[in-house]
């Protein structure tokens, strides 16, 4: 069989229980209908995962998948995705990662690596082109994620790329991430799934070529894309300079930076922290993912204060918030160290930071005491942040409670802590307060994996754009905006490129790149791709409904719906979710229970996939 340009053309299935593996051809109709990475994952998980299985049982499936653009010349084509049923939320999970792991996996010859079962002893999987070995990893078990990288590279060489879990994943902490080459498949607890399978790491090296359909046109399309990236004020200006924190002061001025677990107000030193401070005091050097000219990642070392000498690749915007404003902390050194520790243990820095803010509010309200914790845990206490990360990472003491995320923690803590447990469907919210940008509220409420800013990013249109801006405090156009972004973002996540690339490249341009690479007729217009995106979103929705999700789960934490902020541009606002949600269902072609109608499924050619 001729391998389709842009794809590796193979699916690798590893059964850890039997310690066996199988290689299959990538079906043509899977490509045609589901495009790549996230789309492949959606179809396979829907078809093959037994409904209502325990995410931490051997039954659960975890997939590493790449898209057609992964590992090519296309700007920011570094992404790969983990798809599984999340142990944190109990629903659909796709967790996306940049760096170099995805491209390496693709050059090893596999579009999808699907892992099922559970090894009887700790193992890691070694993939060298067509050679697949399941190796004992008892001596690595207990090692942190960063040292695991060093050990495995020493053993196999720098050509090998690694994705592994740390101590938290091994102990099945529900917020555990998978660390890959200094970057993370962070959200939703994929690390715990690998831990439950006794799988420490994937070690991958490959030397297969990716074919190109139309070389000449592909070059031209790439040259145009490269220029667009370079001249965009975002991808060619602020983002390379300030990193992901380039939006920090804009979000804060817009009133959308959540403070102290979304309570609002201020804390000592709040005004001093912004992207300019990071450039001045932290950043040493720019670093990029595979094939990315943007280089939003930074190498940072703390130059002064009690965290002097601490290093991290980052800190990212989300963490400057999650360990900063969320915890009432303005010591940027503590943020750096906290993010480093998250990589070290292999835990999700957004969920962990959010949870620590929650813990601090519980402490201040007297719901968690010093006797229980062993230390004071008020807002602004940087040492408490670090202590809690250690506890969560090691799953010790009260870390046992908080390591399960805020939804489960609030159940255990009880009282009215549910009111301020800032999550949607069990996934902790990131750094945008939807009371200052209503679209973001709808995006959180309807994202297929829970409280996530990457399924749709309306806050960009609401607060960050200089043109095409729409009123952040109105519900007008929000349902449409969120739906359109979700569909298009699912395409991007399926292609294997970074969301930041689309801040400069439009749908037509990306379609052009894809079509020149693959030559696939059904990818020849942006409309066709968006249709695929919509199909993926409907399938993940059906997956979630099958797992027991209902329309009542499409909601926000009570605090965002009932409490108002006391100052700033969004003073006096709560999120008018209900009206937006109604309109959203209507635009989506879903009924009032949030279920895709038969007509919608037919229109998306999903009827047979769902019933067959």
């Amino acid at each position, binding site marked *: 069989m001729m391998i389709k340009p842009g794809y590796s053309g193979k699916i690798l299935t590893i059964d850890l229980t039997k310690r066996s593996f199988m290689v299959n051809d990538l079906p043509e109709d899977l490509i045609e209908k589901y495009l790549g990475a996230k789309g492949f994952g959606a179809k396979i998980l829907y078809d093959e995962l037994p409904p209502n299985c325990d995410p931490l049982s051997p039954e659960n499936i975890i997939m590493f998948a790449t898209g057609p653009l992964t590992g090519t010349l296309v700007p920011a084509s570094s992404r790969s995705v983990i798809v599984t049923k999340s142990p944190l939320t109990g629903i659909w999970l796709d967790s996306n990662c940049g760096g170099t792991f995805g491209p390496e996996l693709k050059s090893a010859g596999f579009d999808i690596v699907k892992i099922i079962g559970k090894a009887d002893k700790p193992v890691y999987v070694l993939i060298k082109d067509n050679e697949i070995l399941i190796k004992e990893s008892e001596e690595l078990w207990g090692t942190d994620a960063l040292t695991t990288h060093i050990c495995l590279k020493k053993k196999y060489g720098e050509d090998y790329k690694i994705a592994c879990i740390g101590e938290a994943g091994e102990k099945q902490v529900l917020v555990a991430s998978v660390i890959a080459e200094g970057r993370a498949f962070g959200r939703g607890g994929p690390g715990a799934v690998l831990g439950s399978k006794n799988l420490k790491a994937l070690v991958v090296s490959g030397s297969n070529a990716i074919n190109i359909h139309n070389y000449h046109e592909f*070059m031209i399309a790439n040259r145009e894309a490269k220029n667009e990236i370079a001249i965009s004020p975002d991808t060619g200006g602020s983002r390379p300079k300030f990193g992901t924190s380039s939006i920090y002061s804009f979000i804060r001025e817009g009133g959308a930076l959540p403070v102290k677990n979304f309570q609002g107000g201020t804390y000592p030193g709040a005004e001093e922290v912004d992207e300019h401070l990071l450039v001045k005091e932290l950043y040493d050097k720019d670093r990029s993912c595979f094939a990315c000219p943007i280089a939003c990642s930074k190498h940072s070392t703390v130059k002064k204060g009690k965290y002097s000498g601490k290093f991290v690749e980052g800190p990212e915007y989300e963490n400057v918030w999650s360990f900063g404003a969320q915890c009432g902390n303005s010591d940027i050194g503590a943020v750096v160290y906290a993010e480093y520790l998250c990589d070290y243990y292999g835990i999700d820095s957004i969920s962990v930071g959010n949870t620590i803010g929650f813990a601090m509010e519980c402490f201040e309200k007297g719901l968690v005491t010093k006797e229980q914790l062993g230390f004071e845990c008020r807002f602004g206490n940087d040492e408490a942040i670090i202590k809690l990360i250690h506890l969560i990472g090691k799953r010790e003491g009260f870390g046992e409670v908080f390591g399960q995320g805020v939804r489960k923690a609030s159940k255990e803590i009880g009282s009215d802590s549910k009111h301020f447990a800032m999550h949607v469907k069990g996934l902790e919210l990131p750094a945008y307060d939807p009371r200052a940008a209503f679209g973001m509220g709808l995006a959180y409420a309807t994202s297929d994996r829970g409280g996530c800013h990457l399924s749709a990013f309306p806050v960009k249109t609401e607060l960050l754009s200089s043109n095409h801006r729409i009123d952040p405090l109105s519900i007008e156009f929000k349902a449409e905006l969120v739906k359109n972004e979700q569909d298009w973002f699912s395409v991007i996540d399926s292609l294997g490129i970074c969301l930041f690339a689309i801040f400069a490249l439009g749908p037509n341009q990306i379609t052009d790149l894809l079509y020149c690479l693959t030559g696939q007729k059904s990818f020849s217009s942006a409309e066709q791709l968006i249709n695929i995106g919509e199909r993926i979103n409907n399938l993940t929705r059906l997956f979630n409904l099958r797992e027991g999700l209902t329309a009542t789960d499409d909601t926000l934490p009570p605090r965002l719906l009932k409490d108002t902020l006391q100052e700033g541009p969004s003073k006096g606002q709560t999120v008018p979710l209900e009206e937006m949600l109604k309109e959203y269902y209507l635009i989506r072609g879903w009924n009032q229970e949030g279920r895709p109608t038969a007509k919608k499924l037919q229109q998306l050619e999903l009827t047979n996939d769902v019933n067959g």
Partner: protein
Amino acid sequence: MLKFKKDKCIGCSICEVICSMEHEGNINTKKARIRYRDDWPQIGKVYFCRNCAAKPCIEACKENALALDSDKNLMFNVDACTGCFDCSQACQFGELPTDGKYPLFCDRCDGAYQCVNWCPTKALTKAGEK
């Protein structure tokens, strides 16, 4: 001759991708004649044949697979090569890239210098250019 400035490199591997496209017609960084080797948490280094003046590799090659052409550029005859990598050992600038069997030598794309064209930070330049 190609020049590399480490402090400008961001580790994106675009040079590898474009090199393999130029020489192989497809994307395969493991066949690139220029190679970025990561050194996390530090930025790594780029390896390639610099076509240097000394060319100790010619001396080192027992099979006479390496020679000078009329412009004093390096010429590589892969048919004579046994893959012993004596040339790589002799190289003053570090290792030479390989495709797993044989060493790979930068041919500057016959003057097109595709890696220089595509390097987003100008970490790679032609000698004599800024």
